[in-house]
């Protein structure tokens, strides 16, 4: 196996034994980028020169000591909606084509402190709005399992970088499934932690009450390692949870004997691709053999989640994205007649169609006369969905669901119908509404060889349990560190 194909914990073994250097590891992944990035287009900008320099510096430093920390010297990528001082942060939008933030996202600071080596900023749907990464203003990222298919979204670039071995891990953000769904489409592990577990400071906001940063990794153990580095209280984020830190690798390998895994029929409704259903049934069987207890659970109000999600997320987005006005930073239209015209021209030319659609939807939902019917109603439905989850988790420890109704679809297949695109998020959005954690791991391939993702959900702050359940499955099924073909050229 090539160096760039390995997992973080495998590289850690090699680095700790001093069998490889950080420079060799970094060079390997940079070579891989040079070889395949033209096919996948996962990155919006690359820092490979700086990465190699940092690697050499770190090697010198590491030669003088025996201990290194788990992410020290491991090259990674960041979704381009996390602010990086001195490095463009565009959110894949024309609006921020030249934005150079004078501050760092908290997660970037933490990864820098942990010795991470930044390779570049990954492509995404503009302002994280989308489910296919086709809404990027700059490029279309391709699914390494079939280059004619979408990688999912909105963190498509981050998912592809890990799937195509052009990063050992990446961070994405998940507002309605934007980590889990692309992880599912690309055959990698993706986790959305509990709301408030990872600081949102410096994450360009889409929907503040739903956004959460999380990792993409090649296997579950790596997920635990990255999570260790990014979670924790941040005084700069008022919604950040102030909890004692735990090591997510501690109980990782304890197995699932006696664990109650819930299965709800509401997650297996119409529109579910038959192979996905079959694959999930096989996964349930595996859990049974591992000694988990499978229990039937049910939801009363899950049908309302998607509507509530689009109202809440669009309303918050309409306000969060109002600051892009061409005055203090970013794009400004070249021609305008007065101040109001400056606003309108700048925003109409700077934002892409999907972003404008969401701003319009959100503005409408908050506007006078409609607030109660849409926004307030959605916030009430949120209470109901939360209660639904509380009741379900009263009967099980973990809920097992498909991550998405289908495997990756073709590029351009759903762009003409926004509602159809929104429906691909149906299994992921309830999680953000309730603020609970979720992880997507590979659980098989469909008839055309595309990865299928399985989602494990748990109550607030159940990350340890989710990781334990995910790891047990991964070990038993052997579906770990899957290698994409990078096939079917256009």
């Amino acid at each position, binding site marked *: 196996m090539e160096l760039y194909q390995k997992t973080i914990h495998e590289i850690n073994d090699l680095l700790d034994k001093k069998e490889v250097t950080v420079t060799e590891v970094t060079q390997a992944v940079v070579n891989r980028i040079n070889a395949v990035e033209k096919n996948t287009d996962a990155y919006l900008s690359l820092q490979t020169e700086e990465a190699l320099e940092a690697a050499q510096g770190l090697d010198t430093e590491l030669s003088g000591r025996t201990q290194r920390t788990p992410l020290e010297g491991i090259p990674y990528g960041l979704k381009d909606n996390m602010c990086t001082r001195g490095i463009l942060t565009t959110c894949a939008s024309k609006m921020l084509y030249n934005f150079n933030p004078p501050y760092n996202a908290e997660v970037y600071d933490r990864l820098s402190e942990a010795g991470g080596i930044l390779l570049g900023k990954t492509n995404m749907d503009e302002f994280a709005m989308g489910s296919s990464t086709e809404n990027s203003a700059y490029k279309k990222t391709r699914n390494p399992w079939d280059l004619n298919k979408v990688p999912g979204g909105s963190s498509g670039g981050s998912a592809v970088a890990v799937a195509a071995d052009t990063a050992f891990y990446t961070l994405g953000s998940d507002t309605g499934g934007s980590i889990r769904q692309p992880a599912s489409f690309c055959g990698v592990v993706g986790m959305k932690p509990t709301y408030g577990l990872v600081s949102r400071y410096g994450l360009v906001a889409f929907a503040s009450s739903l956004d959460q940063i999380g990792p993409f990794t090649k296997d579950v153990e790596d997920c635990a390692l990255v999570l260790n580095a990014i979670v924790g209280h941040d005084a700069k984020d008022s919604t950040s949870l102030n909890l004692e830190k735990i090591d997510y690798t501690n109980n990782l390998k304890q197995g699932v004997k006696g664990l109650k895994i819930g299965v709800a029929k509401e997650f297996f409704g119409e529109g579910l691709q038959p192979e996905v259903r079959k694959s999930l049934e096989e996964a349930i069987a595996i859990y049974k053999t591992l000694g988990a207890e499978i229990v039937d659970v049910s939801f009363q109000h899950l049908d309302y989640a998607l509507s509530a999600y689009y109202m809440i997320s669009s309303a918050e987005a309409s306000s969060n994205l109002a600051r892009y006005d061409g005055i203090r930073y970013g794009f400004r239209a070249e021609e305008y007649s007065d101040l109001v015209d400056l606003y309108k021209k700048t925003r109409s030319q700077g934002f892409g169609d999907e972003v404008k659609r969401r701003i319009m939807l959100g503005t*409408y939902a908050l506007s006078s006369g409609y607030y109660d019917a849409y926004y307030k109603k959605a916030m009430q439905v949120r*209470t109901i969905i939360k209660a639904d989850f509380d009741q379900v988790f009263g009967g099980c420890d973990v809920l097992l669901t498909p991550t998405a109704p289908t495997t990756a679809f073709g590029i351009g297949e759903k762009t003409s119908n926004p509602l159809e695109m929104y429906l691909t998020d149906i299994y992921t959005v309830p999680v953000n509404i309730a603020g609970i954690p979720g992880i997507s791991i590979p659980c098989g391939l469909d008839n055309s060889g595309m990865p299928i993702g399985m989602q494990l959900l748990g109550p607030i702050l159940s990350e340890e349990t989710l990781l334990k359940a995910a790891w047990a499955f991964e070990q038993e099924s052997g579906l770990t560190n899957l290698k994409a073909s990078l096939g079917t050229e256009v």
Partner: protein
Amino acid sequence: MSLTREDVTYVANLARLEFSEDEVTALADQLGAVLDYAETLSGLDTSHIKATEHVLAVQNVFREDEIKSCLTNEEALANAPESEAGCFKVPRVME
């Protein structure tokens, strides 16, 4: 319910966006479809349900009243499309 072209124009102005005639028509259809879908919500009686604004019951998060360093004027203006005399510049604002 569907969205009228007037609704679209009103909301566009609130959001400081402008659209061509064709775009207005398309938006009325697309947003109308999403809103129609969202109509399912109206079937749910939520009259006695409290709205959830924050999923976690975090409260009273405060900062101490202590001065920390600011950006320099150059840093503050570095990303500005237009500036003059240490300030951001915009077209004349009518008083």
